[in-house]
């Protein structure tokens, strides 16, 4: 089995930070504090997902898709945004959400399967909310992309200098939504950034089964959209190209498509077993290119962090995660009648009647004894 899945050799891309943490290109001009924050976000994301996985094994979380090993891609892209911008993520961009402080509690209760109304009602009011606007996480792959074009077009037509950024996997570039969205984005020249998080696997199907194109990046050419192919495990490369794209969009330069080559070193989600369809050898190759390890090696070498700061940071992270878990656990289970909420404004005969039917079922009463449509007794 090849060590990567795409048609083109994986490492033919823009890179700043080599897997051993040495520089091969000029790094972006980030302050030490910003570097530490990026590093902390990666660590927090990893440890948060480790914790969520434990909760899943214990039955508290229903299912989770981790971004382990891919942290640099969503993080580098999201970090290029400014407050007030928009992000429309899928389910494997947690490091981007963590960077902008989408509350861990909110993420956890969502993973626990609570209705959104329950989360809004029962989470503490004083949770820090993100400065970037996040849509709900999209699950049907590709469906976020046309909405991103619309978000960006709304800004353009209103003369706002806001940028909309979104993600697509290697697999979902095969969806019609992807092509339609990039086409509309090119035609309307909208301030949007499309980030392809190419982790080389769509559950069990490798990237070379998604396309005969040499790269995913080149698909941008067909739509008249500038494109880049970068090392998705290199926080500097992702950030730098995303920043260029975001700045260009903000200044009226239109959309960009960025392919970030990374690797899904973990399962698709907790219902998946990768050993059935891929070799351990491939995974080991990519483990050596881990985004956190290489950034840590660089930061240690540069003296931005040391063993003590890492220890202190990990302690603080774990404390924060434990606090979030406690708060999430305090959110009560959603009430069944919440399933009727937020469909249409106002009410209707059917909604009222079916609410009453559900309530009777919950009360152990027969819901089929209204013969007149005028209600139960």
């Amino acid at each position: 089995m090849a060590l990567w899945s795409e048609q083109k050799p994986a490492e033919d891309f823009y890179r700043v930070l080599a897997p051993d943490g040495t520089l091969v290109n000029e790094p972006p001009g980030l302050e030490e504090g910003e570097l530490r924050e990026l590093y902390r976000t990666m660590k927090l994301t990893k440890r948060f997902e480790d914790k969520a996985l434990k909760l899943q094994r214990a039955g508290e979380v229903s299912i989770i898709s981790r971004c382990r090993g891919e942290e640099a891609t969503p993080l580098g892209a999201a970090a290029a945004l400014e407050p007030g911008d928009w992000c429309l993520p899928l389910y494997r961009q947690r490091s981007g959400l963590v960077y902008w402080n989408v509350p861990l509690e909110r993420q956890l209760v969502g993973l626990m399967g609570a209705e959104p109304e329950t989360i809004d009602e029962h989470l503490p009011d004083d949770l820090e909310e993100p400065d970037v606007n996040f849509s709900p996480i999209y699950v049907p792959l590709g469906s976020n992309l046309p909405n991103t074009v619309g978000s960006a077009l709304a800004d353009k037509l209103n003369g706002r200098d806001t940028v909309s950024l979104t993600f697509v996997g290697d697999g979902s570039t095969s969806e019609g939504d992807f092509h339609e969205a990039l086409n509309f984005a090119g035609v309307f020249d909208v301030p949007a950034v499309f980030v392809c998080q190419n982790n080389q696997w769509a559950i069990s199907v490798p990237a070379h089964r998604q396309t005969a194109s040499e790269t995913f990046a080149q698909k941008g050419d067909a739509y008249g959209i500038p494109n880049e192919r970068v090392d998705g495990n290199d926080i500097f490369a992702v950030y730098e190209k995303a920043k260029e794209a975001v700045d260009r969009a903000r200044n009226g330069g239109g959309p960009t498509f960025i392919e970030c080559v990374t690797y899904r070193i973990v399962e698709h989600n907790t219902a998946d077993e990768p050993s059935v369809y891929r070799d351990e050898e491939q995974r080991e190759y990519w483990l050596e290119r881990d985004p956190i390890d290489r950034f840590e090696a660089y930061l240690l070498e540069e003296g931005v962090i040391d063993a003590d700061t890492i220890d202190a940071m990990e302690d603080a992270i774990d404390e924060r995660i434990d606090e979030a878990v406690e708060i999430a656990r305090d959110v009560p289970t959603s009430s069944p009648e919440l399933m009727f909420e937020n469909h249409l404004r106002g009410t209707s005969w059917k909604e009222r009647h079916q609410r009453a039917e559900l309530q009777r079922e919950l009360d152990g009463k027969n819901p089929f004894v209204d013969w007149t449509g005028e209600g139960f007794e």
Partner: protein
Amino acid sequence: MNDTRTTDGETTERNLVETINRTLADEMRNDASVRLMGYDIGPIGGVYRTTEGLYDEFGGDRVIDTPLSENGLLGTAVGMAMRGERIVPEIQFMGFFYPAFGQFMYTLVKMHERSGGAFDVPMTVRMVCGGGIKASEYHSESTETFLVHTPGVRVVYPSGPREAKGLLAASIRHDDPVVFMEHKKLYRTHREPVPEEEYTLPLDEARIARTGEDLTLISWGAMVRHAETAADRVDADVEIIDLRTLSPLDIETVLESVKKTGRCVVFHEARRTLGLGAELTAVINEYAFDRLHAPVQRATGYDVHFPGNQIEEAYLPDPERAQYAIEAVMNYEF
């Protein structure tokens, strides 16, 4: 939305095309966030001319011709609506709506609910539908069942210009997503007095088009005028319900009428199996069974793909088909 019509206002004889056109213009003048999107809606003014003159008045940022992709159109419109724009996309033929089913199901009907109400999708999809103009296959569809089966969207279906004006204004102003059905046979075949004043009509109330004591004839869209013709011809006092809004259904009005008359025919252009007549028949069975003097009958299209021009008249429900159904139900004996 309430019925805001005054009773003594000035009226002008108009057809549906003119009425849609003028209502779109009114709403665009009232609210700068109202934007139209679709194919051929710009300089050409729409293939049916419903958007004629609007590009000249409001410009290309408000009357937006898009690439030819129903899914791209709907998905982009949802994204704009999520950001506070009030988007009115036009689907030129319902038979070409199906590529957009992904965005319809995943985002248009779901965004408000799955965001716990945090995101609104205030858009009105103008869906041009229906047969009877020899438009050939794929251009004559009445598949409103697909829409009505799906929660999270209103489905509104005017039976003529007067209703259309108030229903379209209400749809555009409403924060729920709406699919607004425009039967193309109605566009130019019928004129009626339409009030000049602006008004809205409720988006959840059926209209009693005619009161009667013997039988309830439930219909909507282009079939309502055929229903009236059939009612004139039969030897029975027929009550006609024009549903106006197919989702949510005005069950109160249906049940009240059927309990009074004890007989019911549902009359629709769409195919029969799982057409809305099936749901109405089920509801009447569940809640008015012991008031019925006869089974509910459905006078509908057949369970076939819409046929070619030469035989489309044989497919389409007409006054005669409604008349047969009414007479059968009136003559039924237990």
